């Protein structure tokens, strides 16, 4: 798969914004400087949010657009020119990596850390979804948090095998917690007044 002939060997060592390129497994295999690695992505989710690395076993990670990482539930020969591959997943590049709303909504239920995962009341969740910033009494970490609330509860059977019966805290999106304030990172197109 890595043997793509001369084109692959001579490829310039920089990000090609029009195509998806699979993240290298480790830093040792990296040819594009600054590019995130699979190892780094898995570690990030494990260390910051307590997501078990086994969650990513079926996934490949790709970069298209500088620092924009996508998660794909299968594999393809890299590079590949398509419009989208899996879902936008993580913004790397800056000092603090930032998960996307899609990633948190889809995988945030696997987050187990209690200092980066915050459960809001319905009223707080509604304000968060509307894009409002709010003062919050929070003892956990600063930075990007997985923001959840309880929804669709009752004595129902969960869609996820690791969930016990009872209300499930459902992830809404990413919040940025700084100086006692939770700033909603819900993208404009996903905000709602409920």
């Amino acid at each position: 798969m890595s043997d793509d002939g001369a084109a692959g060997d001579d490829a310039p060592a920089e990000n090609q914004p029009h195509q998806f390129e699979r993240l290298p497994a480790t830093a040792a295999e990296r040819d594009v400087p600054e590019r995130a690695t699979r190892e780094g992505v898995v570690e990030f989710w494990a260390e910051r949010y307590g997501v078990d690395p086994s969650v990513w076993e079926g996934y490949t990670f790709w970069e298209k657009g500088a620092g924009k990482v996508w998660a794909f539930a299968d594999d393809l020969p890299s590079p590949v020119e398509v419009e989208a591959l899996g879902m936008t997943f993580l913004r790397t590049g800056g000092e603090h990596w930032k998960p996307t709303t899609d990633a948190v909504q889809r995988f945030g239920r696997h987050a187990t850390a209690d200092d980066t995962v915050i459960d809001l009341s319905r009223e707080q969740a509604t304000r968060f979804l509307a894009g409002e910033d709010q003062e919050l009494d929070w003892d956990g970490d600063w930075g990007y948090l997985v923001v959840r609330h309880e929804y669709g509860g009752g004595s129902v059977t969960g869609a996820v095998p690791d969930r016990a019966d009872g209300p499930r805290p459902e992830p809404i999106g990413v919040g940025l917690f700084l100086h006692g304030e939770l700033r909603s990172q819900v993208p404009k197109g996903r905000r709602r007044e409920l």
Partner: protein
Amino acid sequence: MTDGIDDPGDVLGRYEPLVDDVEAFRAACARPLPAVVRVNEIKATPDEVRAGFEEEGIAYETVDWHDGLLRLPDGDPGHSWAYVHGWVYGQEEVSAVPALVLDPEPGERVFDPCAAPGSKTTQLSALMEDTGLLVANDSNLGRLSALRSNAERCGVSNVAVTNADARNFSLKPFSEGDEDDPFDRALVDVPCSCEGTIRKNPDTLAGWTLDHVEGVAGVQKGILERAIEMTAPGGTVVYSTCTFAPEENEAVLDHALRNSDCELVEVDLPLESRPGVTEWEGEEYDPAVERARRIYPHHNDTGGFFCAKLEVTT
């Protein structure tokens, strides 16, 4: 009898010879349809969605033939937590039929050549348990952005989205080495004259012309032919439309049976339907087209639909 429908050419009258109860057919076509949502099982179970709706005070009715569809008498809940979480997708109930007929399995390679805006794509992904490869293509870039945002909200992560003319789609990017790796299944839900959606869009028939029907039938044949070509022998191709026009339904299947390596197989639907027609306006089709299913608005109180299942041969 069809008050409220903009049908200046009486297009529906054209299909009277095909239906069993003309009055009931016309009356159903004139009745609006309730909003329906499909539970997105990538993110939630039907039980959870019902519990969520109850929590939010959203009224729903169950659909007797499918647990994952809910009728909403008060309209589409675009402004609800259920929608925000990607637990539901607004989708007319008959439109849920072709993905169920295709019945893809987790881990397979599936092709969705006319995918936008994504109701069937997201349903296929859920049936595949969001594993394997789902190639979702559409020729229209604008519609593709709707597909992408719907797939994102639903948490679909096994999709590769492409923007190509499905009639000459290339398998190259999805293949290892020099040989093309075929698909296991394809859902060929082609663009059509959409007469079956009259209950949703009462002006669907306002601009109807036979020229358009004949033109779009040519496109449909090309898309189906290429999909069959790219599917492995023994694999399944489902052909579907939301039109009653035999030119776009049985005639397209007849063309595929004569020109491609495929045969039509029986379809067992959980809702009432009629067989495909073998004769239309002086044309005769391969008798096997009877195995296709026609779904009429008056039989299940739904939209109209056409669906056929093909097996690829060598």
